[in-house]
């Protein structure tokens, strides 16, 4: 009713508009659409956080179960390596192991992120209120939490076995950020067909490259100067933030659909 009154007032003031029939039709259409809109929205739609809570039910166990299995495998491998190797382990094998593990942690998201396009749900999801961004943002949030838990558990295990915080930062966190940033960039820029293959290849290549870079760093005069990695980590975080933002404003979803 309030809307109707507003329109009536507006058109009462603007009495001498030209194209009267046209304006009458516009007025009628606007009225109809406002009334229909008001009638259909007698209850407020779900908020974004309510959507995320609802998504918990649909996806979260699948995501965390997969990540849990991968974490268990990584922990077993880590402890096995610890029992089988000597002091040399600390110096060389463990940082390498952490670097590869970070790649595996990132790649554990691939089977989850490909689901929407693999099962041809992406087009339908895109046409809904929250669009594909709603479901992907929820999934990315759960994946992010899972990744964080995986990294913390791995870090705690190797820390308990004597590895220092700085080595953990350089061997686990830096490669993780690098691989995550490159894979996210690939994901939102390319068509879904063949995404898994490309993501795995890119993830592996990035991890190998990081491994080489870290080996070079350990043998260089820069070794021990942690500060030189801070700008790099910051850059990776900026890229991750930008890519996630791009995803949430939906400017990349067309690439992902077709």
């Amino acid at each position, binding site marked *: 009713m309030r809307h109707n009154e507003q329109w009536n007032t507006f058109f009462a003031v603007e009495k001498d508009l030209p194209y009267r029939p046209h304006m009458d039709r516009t007025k009628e259409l606007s009225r109809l659409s406002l009334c*229909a809109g008001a009638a259909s929205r007698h209850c407020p*739609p779900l908020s974004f956080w309510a959507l995320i809570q609802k998504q918990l039910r649909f996806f979260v166990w699948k995501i965390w179960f997969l990540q849990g299995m991968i974490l268990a495998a990584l922990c077993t491998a880590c402890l096995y390596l610890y029992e089988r190797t000597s002091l040399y382990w600390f110096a060389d094998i463990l940082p390498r192991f952490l670097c590869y593990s970070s790649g595996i942690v990132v790649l554990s998201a691939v089977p989850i992120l490909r689901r929407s396009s693999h099962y041809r749900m992406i087009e339908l999801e895109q046409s809904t209120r929250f669009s594909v961004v709603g479901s992907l943002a929820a999934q990315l949030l759960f994946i992010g939490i899972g990744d964080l838990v995986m990294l913390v558990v791995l870090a705690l295990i190797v820390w308990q076995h004597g590895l220092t915080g700085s080595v953990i930062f350089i061997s686990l966190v830096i490669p993780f950020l690098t691989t995550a940033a490159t894979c996210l960039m690939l994901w939102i820029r390319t068509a879904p067909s063949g995404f898994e293959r490309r993501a795995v290849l890119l993830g592996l290549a990035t991890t190998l490259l990081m491994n080489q870079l870290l080996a070079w760093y350990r043998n260089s005069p820069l070794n021990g100067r942690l500060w030189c990695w801070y700008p790099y980590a910051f850059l990776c975080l900026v890229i991750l933030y930008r890519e996630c933002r791009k995803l949430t404003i939906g400017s990349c979803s067309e690439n992902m659909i077709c």
Partner: protein
Amino acid sequence: MELILEHVSKQFKDRQNIKKAVNDVNLQLSPGVWGLLGANGSGKTTLMRMICGIMKPTSGHIRYDGVSIEDLGDTYRDVIGYLPQEFGFYPEFTVRQYLEYIAALKGLPDKVARQKIDELLTRLSLEDVYKKKISKLSGGMKRRVGIGQALLNDPEFLVLDEPTSGLDPGERVRFRNLLSEFAQNRIVLISTHIVSDIEYIATQNAIMKNGAILQTGSTQELVVQMEGKVFEAVINPQDVSRWEQKVQVVNVRNEADGSVSLRYLGNPDDIPRAKLQEPRLEDLYLELFPRK
């Protein structure tokens, strides 16, 4: 309520080539059932994807009640229901879970979603299978679930891309009735190659060819141009292939006495003793998209 397409085009880059899937489409969709007819590859799906905001047009504008659908964003997506041509689903979902998942993405609060899902399960005869995994359902049943999800938010504007493929004749009739009832004060856009599915329920038709809209109008308005061009002749069964080479055959029907009735487009003297027939939309379709 009105959706206006102004000079809408979409092109795809396919390696070196540029493919114009939709070419300068102008259309004004008002409440009622709209049939979008066209041969394979004529651009129906691409046009529907743009109308639903899934793809952006390369050029041109799409406006809903005068406002660009891009500006309307989620307000626009709130009032549309879309059934894609390739209906997808997560294999672990049951029918009910699937509808609950889509209802959540459509922003329906729990109570409304529950009521709407119960109502749709009954209307689409899915009450017996709601606990089943979608992957275990037949093709036609899956299609019904797809139609159900499109109706969840009681859309003002319903876009269905080949909704009837895979439905049996009984379900087709029920579906047509459901749509006719639903289309009161709403815009329903249906794409299909099955002319009979929209011939009787579409208030308006748009015919697409090579990405462009060739003709628009009600079925009666469109078929007028076919008057005096559709004939039926009774022939011997062994002559069918000979006549098929000479005239554009619409339909071949075997009669009880062993002869064959041939409906064709052309002239009365093409086949001896041919009788003039009332034109139908299918005849126009075959005139515009002749069989090779």
